[in-house]
């Protein structure tokens, strides 16, 4: 008996080693049993918490790629959306939009490389130019709303006239009031714009959405411009004095979509013929 105890004491490490290995292999073989499946794996609350935390840190390193992918995906969805909307407009049933008209808008993703908001006439530089099929006159929108219109193009860059420009006007529509006016920047606050030419006999509601109207060849209809902030009355005028909050925050503009209306030239050429008669 004494010898046995002495043997166990002497080789206790070997016995412990064997015991631990047996436990390990028991785990390996029974890895699907309930106890281990519910605790010793990454679904364990502590382990999962730790991995979530670690992933949230790692996610930052991948943001650049993720942003680019999302912008590309948005471009595709935008194109699809305008095609569907233009293919089935709110119109009498007799009206059929032909596919050329419905497909007239094409989108391209670009990244903003330079941007001002503090001047009276602001411009934005984007990293796509004529090599990517960008031409002066195309519209530019952001994920949150209207941005501007391409003014100049080089091979790899383009300068965009921001809607924060004293000469820029966007034909816009109030959704609830169903009236069309012109949005224009008054040069004061880069977060606000004026909406002109809305008749004072139309009821206008605070918070009503202002979107691009059908009456322009640059932007697809229905792109958000902003929301009504204040409604006043201009003295001696028949129009409302409306201030809108811009939906796009121009100070942190990152990815934008350049909109190419393939029928714009045709439309403008046709309209130019009656220009002189006006």
């Amino acid at each position: 008996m004494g010898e046995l105890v002495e043997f166990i004491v002497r080789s206790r490490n070997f016995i412990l080693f064997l015991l631990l290995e047996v436990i390990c292999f028991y785990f390996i073989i029974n890895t699907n049993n309930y106890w281990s499946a519910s605790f010793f794996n990454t679904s364990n609350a502590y382990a999962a918490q730790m991995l979530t935390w670690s992933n949230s840190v790692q996610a930052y390193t991948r943001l650049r790629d993720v942003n680019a992918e999302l912008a590309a995906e948005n471009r595709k969805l935008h194109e699809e959306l305008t095609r569907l909307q233009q293919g089935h407009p709110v119109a009498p049933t007799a009206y059929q939009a032909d596919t050329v008209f419905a497909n007239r808008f094409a989108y391209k993703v670009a990244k903003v490389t330079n941007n001002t908001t503090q001047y009276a006439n602001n411009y934005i530089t984007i990293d796509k130019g004529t090599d990517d099929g960008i031409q002066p006159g195309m519209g530019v929108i952001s994920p949150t709303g209207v941005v501007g219109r391409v003014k100049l193009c080089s091979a790899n860059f383009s300068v965009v006239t921001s809607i924060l420009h004293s000469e820029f006007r966007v034909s816009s529509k109030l959704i609830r009031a169903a009236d069309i006016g012109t949005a224009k920047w008054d040069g004061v606050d880069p977060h606000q714009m004026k909406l002109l030419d809305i008749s004072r006999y139309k009821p206008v509601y605070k918070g009503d959405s202002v979107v691009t109207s059908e009456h322009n060849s640059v932007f697809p209809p229905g792109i958000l411009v902003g929301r009504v902030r204040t409604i006043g009355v201009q003295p001696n005028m028949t129009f409302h004095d409306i201030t809108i909050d811009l939906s796009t925050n121009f100070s942190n503009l990152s990815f934008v979509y350049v909109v190419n209306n393939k029928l714009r030239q045709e439309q403008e050429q046709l309209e130019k013929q009656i220009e002189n008669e006006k």
Partner: protein
Amino acid sequence: MIRCLITTMTLREITNLVFLFLLYLLLQILILRNVVLFDYAFCFVYIAGILLLPPQINRSAFLLISFFTGVIVDTFYNTLGMHAAATVLIAYVRPLILRTQVDLPGQEQRQVLSLNELGFNKFFRYTILLALIHHTTLFTIEASSLTLLVPTLIRIAASTLFTTICIVLIQFFTRN
């Protein structure tokens, strides 16, 4: 075990050791878990925490520490038991490797296992041998049959090299 350690180490050395041990473990779990070179080379740097524990540590305690380290790593790899088995094995054979490869001068003298104390040659041999044993066990268990023999062998060789290089590099940078 703690009494045994305290007789030979200062408190500062112990906290240092615990800190490094946890650091290796966190490094493994949070970062190196996602690092695989060329689909073959994995890095299991957490074994450095085991390898660098002082040689005079109580062997039973050492086996238990290794076991729990393995279980923690297994939890994050969803491979319950595999890392634990490999880690317990290297913990058990470590004294043998120390005796034959590193030939520690006398058990009474306090000895720290580090690149500085052992020199590059001994340290590299010690690390690569134990890493080889660990990875061989791990990947053999994982493959659990001989059908994928060649990929498993490549994996063992590549991972052993990768892990060893990582451990030696970390030693280079944490000399002080």
